[in-house]
């Protein structure tokens, strides 16, 4: 069963009236007409630009034509084209989504030190905030964002980032997705899901280092 066709928004008189700005007409037509219709009538693109090039009479004519021909959205023969064109092509650079290849067992272990609420788990793309301390297997602390005194902790902020997006080492992305809000866990991450064969040159992390983190998941947004 076909969806009901869009209804006319304005009468003929209202159309011709000066109270109806071109932009409103253009918006209506863009929202309701098939892509091919818009293309033929040169009504694609930024509303401001279309308003500059199209006269009111042309727009009224197009509007009427639309209802006569019933070439509404979804009536294009090539429905796929319709969908593709309708999808907003965003300018923002794409996130590199590295689909995890099935590599076998996870290269980290998680031990819960303090239970969380067991209800709120972060999903990919959520912003998580956490306090953490990172040590090497021999106990050397190579990184921490927990300041020495409680007073200073008030002045600092926990580390915030979007989880599951490849912005942190894999062990963290995978580990944090399995933690609930308020949980403190010990993550032991093998080199492969940390800094691998290279380690972090010029830093305290040697090649092939297994890393141990104590992480407290403070909040999820």
């Amino acid at each position, binding site marked *: 069963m076909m969806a009901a066709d869009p209804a006319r928004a304005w009468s003929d008189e209202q159309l011709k009236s000066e109270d109806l700005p071109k932009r409103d007409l253009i918006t209506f037509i863009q929202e309701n007409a098939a892509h091919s219709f818009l293309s033929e009538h040169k009504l694609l693109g930024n509303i401001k630009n279309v308003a500059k090039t199209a006269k009111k009479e042309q727009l009224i004519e197009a509007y009427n034509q639309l209802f006569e021909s019933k070439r509404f959205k979804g009536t294009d023969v090539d429905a796929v084209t319709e969908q593709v064109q309708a999808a907003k092509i965003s300018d923002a650079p*794409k996130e*590199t989504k590295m689909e995890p290849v099935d590599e076998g067992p996870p290269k980290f272990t998680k031990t819960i030190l303090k239970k969380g609420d067991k209800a709120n788990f972060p999903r990919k793309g959520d912003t998580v905030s956490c306090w*953490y301390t990172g040590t090497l297997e021999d106990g050397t602390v190579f990184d921490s*964002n927990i300041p020495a005194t409680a007073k200073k902790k008030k002045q600092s902020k926990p*580390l915030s980032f979007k989880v599951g997006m490849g912005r942190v*080492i894999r062990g963290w992305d995978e580990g944090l997705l399995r933690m609930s809000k308020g949980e403190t866990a010990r993550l032991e991450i093998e080199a492969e899901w940390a800094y691998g064969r290279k380690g972090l040159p010029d830093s305290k992390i040697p090649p092939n280092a297994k890393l141990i983190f104590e992480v407290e998941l403070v909040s999820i947004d």
Partner: protein
Amino acid sequence: MALELLCDVVQRCQAIKDEGFSPEDYDLFFTAGRTCIEQGNSAQVLSILVDEKNKSIVRCMGWNLLGPLVQILLKKEDRNLPHCHAILSHLLEVCSPKELLVGLLEQVEEADTGSIAETVTLLLKPLQTVLLRLGMKKASTVGMALSTLLSQVARLPVPVTKEQEEDDVFGLCHCCTALLHFVKPFVEEIKEVVKDNNRISKDNELRVELLKFCMKSLSKPLLEVKLKDPDTLLKSPLRDFATEILIILSSIGESLPDLLSRNVLKRREVPGFLEEEVRYPKESLACLSHLLFVDHIAVDIFPAVLSPIFVLKCNMEYIELLLSRTEESRLQKGLELYEKSLIRVEDNSLPVDLLELKTFFSVPQNLVKVMTLCPDQTLRTKGLKVFQLSIDKFNTEAKYKFFKGMLKTSHHAGVEGYIIKNIKNQIDFSLKPYNGNDWFLGKHLLPLLRLVLCLPHGPETDLLQNLDRIMESLNLLRYMLIRDKEWENETGIWTELYKIEDNYLKPLRTGLNMSKAHYEAELKSAKENKKISSKDSKASVCTVTVDNEKLPNMTPEMQIQVLQSAVFTFDLIEGVLARIEEIIETKERPLS
């Protein structure tokens, strides 16, 4: 005389009510006061100024004396110094902060290059005192002061060697250290706000001014400075300055990882978006990145959990900026940052979708410019090294796409030759057991080869200019014909061979023959001309002038040398070509 005049005007003004002094009063006070100070009567001036009866006079007019006072203080004459300092302190207490600031900043602004360091050093404490008097309303004035001070300090020459930094002849190090002391109370104020409220508004005015100060410092002088590591120079004021700037940023609520990733994670719909752009100049962020990853400044406040590929993505924006400049210092920093970002990444790990990011193509193109056009040889060499490093980090599919892109866009025979050599290495790698892939074997390889095994302008291609490319492509072809057995044909080269012969080998052979014939004829005539004209004076066909100086004409000997070497080059090409033709012929001839 002047002293009497001063006393007169002061006495007269004592009688005037409600500070209704006339412009003439101001003038007289100023002129007389200035002369007294300049003539060394500062003790007397001091006693006049501290007199309670003159309080309102001093409050209104005193700040005008700042100019002459500062000039005397800069001269550092022992005799008058204590009195002048005392005058200054008194004025700082009594006069209106706004007017004092105007006077003090004027002195800073007007300092000539030779006295910037001294003026700044002298006036920082007074400025701080005055600013702290402003209380809650100080933010924009603090900003103005910081901006003026930094602008002047940025004019000071930057030390290059470690000895220069130690000697600090022009005072940059001293000023930077002094600036840190200057901003300290303001930073502490912000830290208090953070502590009390657990957060701070992004638009808190004082915070914004401090942010501007940090960003500006990162650009000038820090981007200019080449920091020395602790092994080279144990105590480095400039390194301390850089460290402190990063710590200040962190203290006022700017997360360093967030700063780094600003350009990669742009949020377009945020209101006041443009304002954000202005607050975080890309050049300053580029310096920040270099400080973190190359100079290892403030590493302990930077989290060690970021994924190396993400860090690379963020840094590409800054590398692109630095490599698009021509100053060698910028190029050097760009190359260093690129190198450091790449070595953290595993070989063969960068995926192909990274190439959809603009920077992953624009940076190599900038790099090509450095490799081919930069006058400095060390930079060219380093550029090439980093270029190869970047190639090594791409995974196989990405390498393929990258090579294709570079062959289509670089238009430089040397670069093309280098890419072709890389392609050969990849094919060699792929032919080894367990290394097979779709990109450098089989169906995808052939379209790539078509870009390699072709003459840009058909038989008319300038073979000399394209030598690097032609030699590498012939070497590649020869390698493939020998390595890939005809009956295995893993690369598909044998089935493609007839097309290659038609589209490449035959036109090359034609071009080669033509060029050789032409140059050999030229060579012959040059040799003959030499015999003739060695007696007569040489009438040159053309002259070359550079910078209003005519270059010496090419002697006939030089000309012959050049032509000879061209002919040798053609022989080189012919050698490989002949070998290839031989291999093809042998394979095509049935074994009898």
